[in-house]
Each structure stands twice: as structure tokens, then as C-alpha cells.
């Protein structure tokens, strides 16, 4: 298959064209950064050669931040300030977090997203994640030798809009040039599919530290099409640790534990789980601060028994996804295993039994997501070579809708819709003379608003006072290629019009992010102005290259006058980008954008015509119907 290799070994694209692009797997337990180098996707290691970065962040009284192995080593002695598995808190309120009573943190429950009290002050999960991402960015920049131009970050396919938005905000805080959020199982499918020239229906079973995803994909030559996805964004390897932890408490008949003892036993539980991957028995011993001594042996059988219900919980979404895709078990050609938790023998067995075939394990389950993300980042950055590319068609995991009278949900975009997608629906007023309408946007599969996740609320004013049911309010949903939603509403009876566009931001306002950005920049002692200038220079370079590439391939679409204006704009931006006046760069970019707007439209038209090229003309001529298109009812 032509897609197998992105470049010949040892051969790389010329450095001036090669944009530095990375894929980041921001995991519950571990995070990784990978890039495509000389046509091969590689995970970037730290100075000590370690590819994984434990997703652990410790805050110290002097404002210092430890991330990774150092922080992990201190989690038992400084549990309150050492944040583990922060991914579970992203875009979540306290009541959404299972077992939070058992966690050693000082939570602050806020509407939208919880906060954590640390010795260094209050931190949002977005900031904690940004601290992890910043370390990965620095690692990549040091390794690749310059500022990054493009980053793809993976998220669980089952992440809802709030969790995706939180991840995007974290990337912004960390100074990463994010160009796409990519679903983790889809990333794994890319890595697996390209590596094995796979074709057919594949299932990706992704059990991470804190999340579970199942995706069903159709792989055809050069196309990765997600047919359905499902999962549980609060189920993962952590829960298996927790089951062992509970078993220890019971088996050793322990008194209520201190925070430090609890954290230590959780660590012992995790070690036992990992040990059981290769052994039939795991010894668990610990001396607690309370003076109690734990000395137990956990067998594979007991471990399987106490986690049986967790495994059963993963099979429900699997069945649902297959049903949504209109497929049965026999249609699935292979099952790709992703996530460190799939190393557990009982997981392998359960998946094999369900699909009636041996799961595919020939890729490192810890690295496959980062590898796939790096491949996609490389493609999106424009580093792929002609012919060696692929098309990715992904879906939204959960239905989107709005609240209607009586606390019911009117679904506007159903789950598993291919993105980008948009849908509009008309609503009307409930009372005579009603001049405002409250729009409550929710996500989920249940019929009652109270069972779905609330994403945003806004009000539409300026509706002309009419009898109930006479006004026509059109609510439009647009989901972009990152799976993020934008909502607008418009009153459209004659003579009156009001419109509002809402990007839900879940507890973090733009102002808050701006403030955090400032704080974080001060904290790492980076000069904010220098950073901002560097970023706009990178953006300018990206635009310059995009326009130059466009001119090279489709320059004939411009008249001589237009071409001269674009060329002048290019020169101006090129000049500005060499200087250090950020305002001038921004202005020159705006000008060039404006001067190439029509050009972009013509190129798009040309692309679409190309899709028709080679078709039988008579075939096309017979297709026409009245051109005016009515909106679907």
C-alpha cells in the first residue's frame, strides 16, 4: 500500500519546507509527544531516554512546579499538592467525579469545572493539564530545534464538548499551536492502518488510565471512516487499581486511612496490577504510618473476579457502537488494543471472547495513540508528500440538542454524525407576547434535560411580541472538525431579526484564560511579549507558505491586477515577519487574508470541479433539478 511509508528511509523533505509538527497523547496516567522524522513516526524521550511523562503535577510552596517522574515520586509524601489523573477533572464538576471523597485533594466545587486548592494557590484542571503540555512542548522544541508550527492533541472519542474545550484551552495556555483535536482510537487506527495496510472493518478497544473508548472504523485505501463510537469517559485502569485498593482494605481489615497511607496503598495496588500482567501472583506489602502492616498476595483469579463488573461495563458501549454502525461481531476483521490497561490478561480474554478472535497487539498500546497523532499532525502541517496522504472522517460521540418546554431534550444533531456537521431547527414561543427566549444547549442521549450534560445557556432578545406559536426562531448548531460546537439563534419573522453566536466555554471565560496565560508566562519567567511575537511570526510563516503554495498550483485563477496585489501583500508580510513589530505582522496578515479571500473561494471551486473530472458529461447533464433548494422541514 502506497501509504505505508511517508518517505523513503533516510530521505526527508527539505528543511525549509518541513514544518515542525508534533502529536501529543495527553493521557490520564502518562503523556507522550511524538513527531514524524525522515518519514518515520517516533516518540520523543526526555534527557534520560524515557518516552513516557507521568501525568502527575506537583505544586510547591515557592511556586515551583514539578511534572512527571519527580512529581510521581512525591505523591505519597505530598498527596494534597500532587495532582494525579487530572484528566478525570477536565470540564467536570465535583459531582461528576466518581470516588472523589477518597481523593486526597482540597476540591473547590464551582459551576462548570471544579478547582483544586494547592499550596501554590487554586488551580483549574486546565492549568494543571497545561503544565503537563508545557513540559512536552519544551521537550519537543529542544529535540526538534525550534518553535513548533503545528500540534495535534488526542482526546478520548467519548469526551463531550466541555472536556474537548477544556483540552483546547489547556493547549492555548501551554503555548501550543494546536491545529486539531483528534480522537484517541482514531489516532490508533491511523497508526495501525498505515503500518499494516489494513482494509475492512476494525474495532479499536481503548482502555486508558481513566477513560474507555470503543470506535468502529471502516478502513479503505487512503480513507479512515469512523462509523460509530462509544465509551465511558469515567472508566479506566484507575478503577482497576481502586478495586485492588478496596480489596486490600477488606483483606487486611484496616482502620480508616490517612491521606498519605491511602495514596501509598493506591500505588501498591497499581504495582500489583502491573505485576499480574506477567505473573500469576502479586505480593502486596506495606508498612503504614499508622503502624499497621499489610502483607497480602493477590492472585490473577481474584483480580479477575473483583474487576469482572468493570469489564462488563466496557462491553455495553461495544454492543451499542456495533448496533449504531449497523454491524455485527462477524463483520469485524480485527480488534486493535490501545491503552496500557489492555495489558491486563482478563481484558485481553474478555475482548477476545466477545469478538471471537485474538485481539491485535502488535503495536505498543502506550505509544500507538501518540504515533498516530504525530502522523496526522505531519499530514495537517502539509509535510506529507503527494500521493502519501489519507482522508479521515470522524464523528461526534454524543447527541446535541436544546431544552424545550417541560424539561425535555430536542435532539438537533444525533450522535455518530460525521463532522463537520450543521443542523438547524425551528422553534417558536410558548406565551403570547413573549419577547425573549432562553436557549439551553445540552449533550447526551437521554430525553430529560436533567440526565444530559449542560453545555451553555443564552438568551435571545428582540423577538417581536406575537401570539404564542407565531414567532419563528431558527436555532443552528455547527460542529467543527475538532468536534466543538457553536450555536446561533435567529428570530426570522418579517421585519425583525436578532442573532447571537455562542461558543460554550464551560466555567473558563476568555478573560480567565487571558489572565491564566499572563500568570503562567510570568511563572515560567518567559517574556510574554517575546513569546507572542514568536507566535505571530510562526503564524505569519504559515500564512506565507500557504499562499505561496496556492499561487504555485493555482496562480492562473487570479487576474494580473489581483496577482500584483497578492504579491505585494506577500512582500509586506514577509518584511513584517522579519521585524519585531507584532502589530505590523498582524495587520499585514489581515491584509493578505482579505486580498486572498476570493482566491481561496476560487481554489475551493476548482478542487470541487476536480472531484468531477473524468466523469461522463451526459451523466452530469441529466442530473439537474430545480436549483432553488428548500430547507428540510
Amino acid at each position, binding site marked *: 500500500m502506497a501509504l505505508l511509508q511517508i518517505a523513503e528511509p533516510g530521505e526527508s523533505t527539505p528543511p525549509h519546507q518541513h514544518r515542525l509538527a508534533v502529536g501529543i497523547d495527553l493521557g490520564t496516567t502518562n503523556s507522550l509527544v511524538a513527531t514524524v522524522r525522515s518519514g518515520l513516526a517516533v516518540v520523543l524521550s526526555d534527557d534520560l531516554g524515557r518516552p513516557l511523562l507521568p501525568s502527575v503535577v506537583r505544586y510547591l510552596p515557592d511556586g515551583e512546579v514539578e511534572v512527571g517522574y519527580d512529581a510521581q515520586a512525591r505523591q505519597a509524601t505530598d498527596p494534597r499538592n500532587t495532582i494525579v489523573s487530572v484528566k478525570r477533572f477536565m470540564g467536570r464538576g465535583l459531582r461528576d467525579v466518581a470516588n472523589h471523597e477518597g481523593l486526597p485533594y482540597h476540591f473547590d466545587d464551582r459551576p462548570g469545572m471544579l478547582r483544586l486548592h494547592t499550596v501554590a494557590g487554586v488551580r483549574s484542571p486546565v492549568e494543571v493539564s497545561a503544565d503537563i503540555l508545557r513540559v512536552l512542548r519544551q521537550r519537543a522544541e529542544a529535540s526538534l530545534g525550534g518553535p513548533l508550527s503545528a500540534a495535534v492533541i488526542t482526546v478520548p472519542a467519548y469526551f463531550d464538548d466541555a472536556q474537548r474545550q477544556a483540552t483546547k484551552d489547556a493547549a492555548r495556555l501551554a503555548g501550543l499551536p494546536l491545529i486539531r483535536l483528534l480522537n484517541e482510537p482514531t489516532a490508533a487506527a491511523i497508526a495501525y492502518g498505515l503500518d499494516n495496510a489494513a482494509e475492512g472493518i476494525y474495532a479499536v478497544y481503548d482502555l486508558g488510565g481513566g477513560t474507555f473508548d470503543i470506535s468502529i472504523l471502516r478502513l479503505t485505501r487512503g480513507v479512515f471512516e469512523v462509523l460509530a463510537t462509544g465509551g465511558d469517559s469515567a472508566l479506566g485502569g484507575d478503577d482497576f487499581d481502586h478495586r485492588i485498593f478496596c480489596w486490600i482494605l477488606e483483606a487486611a481489615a484496616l482502620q480508616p486511612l490517612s491521606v498519605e497511607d491511602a495514596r501509598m496503598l493506591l500505588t501498591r495496588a497499581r504495582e500489583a496490577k502491573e505485576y499480574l500482567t506477567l505473573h500469576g501472583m502479586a505480593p502486596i506489602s506495606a508498612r503504614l504510618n499508622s503502624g499497621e502492616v499489610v502483607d497480602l498476595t493477590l492472585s490473577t483469579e481474584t483480580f479477575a473476579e473483583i474487576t469482572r463488573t468493570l469489564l462488563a461495563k466496557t462491553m455495553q458501549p461495544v454492543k451499542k457502537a456495533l448496533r449504531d454502525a449497523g454491524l455485527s461481531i462477524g463483520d469485524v476483521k480485527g480488534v486493535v488494543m490501545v491503552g496500557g490497561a489492555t495489558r491486563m490478561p482478563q481484558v485481553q480474554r474478555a475482548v477476545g471472547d466477545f469478538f471471537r478472535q485474538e485481539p491485535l497487539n502488535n503495536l505498543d498500546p502506550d505509544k500507538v495513540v501518540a504515533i498516530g497523532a504525530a502522523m*496526522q499532525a505531519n*499530514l495537517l502541517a502539509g509535510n506529507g508528500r503527494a500521493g502519501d496522504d489519507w482522508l479521515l472522517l470522524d464523528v461526534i460521540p454524543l447527541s446535541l440538542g436544546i431544552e424545550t418546554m417541560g424539561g425535555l431534550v430536542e435532539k438537533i444533531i444525533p450522535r455518530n454524525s460525521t463532522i*463537520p*456537521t*450543521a*443542523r438547524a431547527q425551528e422553534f417558536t414561543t410558548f406565551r403570547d407576547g413573549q419577547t425573549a427566549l432562553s436557549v439551553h444547549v445540552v449533550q447526551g442521549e437521554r430525553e430529560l434535560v436533567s440526565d444530559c450534560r449542560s453545555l451553555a445557556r443564552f438568551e435571545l432578545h428582540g423577538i417581536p411580541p406575537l401570539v404564542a406559536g407565531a414567532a419563528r426562531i431558527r436555532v443552528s448548531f455547527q460542529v467543527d472538525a475538532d468536534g466543538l460546537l457553536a450555536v446561533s439563534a435567529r428570530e426570522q419573522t418579517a421585519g425583525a431579526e436578532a442573532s447571537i453566536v455562542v461558543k460554550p466555554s464551560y466555567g473558563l471565560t476568555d478573560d480567565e484564560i487571558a489572565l491564566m496565560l499572563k500568570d503562567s508566562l510570568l511563572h515560567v519567567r518567559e517574556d510574554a511579549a517575546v513569546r507572542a511575537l514568536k507566535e505571530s511570526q510562526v503564524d505569519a510563516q504559515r500564512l506565507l507558505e*500557504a499562499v505561496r503554495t496556492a499561487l504555485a498550483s493555482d496562480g492562473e485563477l487570479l487576474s494580473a491586477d489581483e496577482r500584483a496585489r497578492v504579491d505585494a501583500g506577500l512582500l509586506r508580510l514577509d518584511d513584517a515577519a522579519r521585524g519585531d513589530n507584532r502589530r505590523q505582522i498582524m495587520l499585514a496578515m489581515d491584509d493578505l487574508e482579505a486580498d486572498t479571500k476570493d482566491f481561496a473561494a476560487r481554489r*475551493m471551486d476548482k478542487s470541487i470541479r476536480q472531484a*468531477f473530472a473524468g466523469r461522463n458529461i451526459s451523466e452530469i447533464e441529466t442530473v439537474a433539478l430545480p436549483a432553488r433548494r428548500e430547507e428540510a422541514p
Partner: protein
Amino acid sequence: MPLPPAPGRQMAHGRGPRCLPERLTRTAMDFAADHFSLFGLPAAFRIDPLLLDRRYIELQTQVHPDRFASAGEGAKRLSQQWATRVNEAYQTLRRPLPRARYLLQLARHDVGSENNSAMPADFLVEQMEWREAVAEARAAGDHHELERLHHRLQRELAAREEEIAALLDEQRDLEQAADQVRRLMFEEKLLSEIDDAIAAGEE
């Protein structure tokens, strides 16, 4: 009432590179074109699903936002609009019910809403019997019976779709076709309720 005659549509050919931009934009594929023209398919109920899939991939290959991830804002916006448009058209044509409704809509024939009063009494009685059978099987937790109902209903759906195909493509009887489409809407809703019951039983 017959389907309206198809006015000839000109696709520009033999265009040299020196063409004026205004002309190019006018002759290009129209954003507001109907779904069938967008995929270069004849506007009919019976379609070649493999050809539809292929055209869909061909179009997305050209317009998908992933192709424009490093482009300017204008191109990104356009790409999102186009990719959304292509997805919408594909979803409409891919499945029989939305495709039939869309054909009727193109012919300016109102299908009407899922409104009981518009349906004949014998059909409604039949629907009630179906619903009772589903409710009983559900209450009894009879998974096997639900599966049986699912397959029986699917056979009825297939027969109904054949009928709609004949009415739309050969007889061009929009009145009758709309009536059959309304019945199909009831039956698809029923099918999804059976599927929900099956799903609930599995959990």
C-alpha cells in the same frame, strides 16, 4: 403529478487557464446545487450506493478541513462550509427515508408531518397492534420476541421501500409516494423503538 422535467445543466469544459475569474466562479460547482447534482447522480430513488460512497469520498478528499489545516482563515471557513454541505447531502441520500423525503421536497410536494389525523384508520390500527406486541415483549423481557419483531418489521420496511421506488421512479405518482413515505416514517420510528427496547434489555 409527474416529476418536473430536468432542465439541462451546463458544466464548463475546455476552459483554458486564461479564463476570467468571474466566469470561473460562476461555472463552478454550485454550493446551492441539489444533493444529487452535488454527487453527479441522477435524481432518483434508486441509486447506486457504491457510486454514492465513492463520490462522497472524492468530494471530501477535496474539501475536508484537514486539507486546509495550515491554510488561511478564509480557506478554513470555506472548507468547513463545504465539508458540512457534503456531509449533509451524503446523509440525506444514503438512507431510503430521507432520500425519498428529499425527492418529494425537490418536487415541491409536501410530505406533511407525522400526524395521525392524516393516516388511514386501518394503518393506525395496525400500528397500535405492533406497539402492543412490542410493549408486551418488553414487559416480559422477551429478547427473542423483540428480535423477531425487529426482523419482521425490517422485511415490511424493505417492501415499502420497493413500493416507493416504483412510485417515484417509474409511475411518478407523488401523491401515492408521499402516502407511502408517511407510512415509512411511522415504521422507522417503531423500528427505533424496538431497537431501544433490545438495547435496554442488553444493559
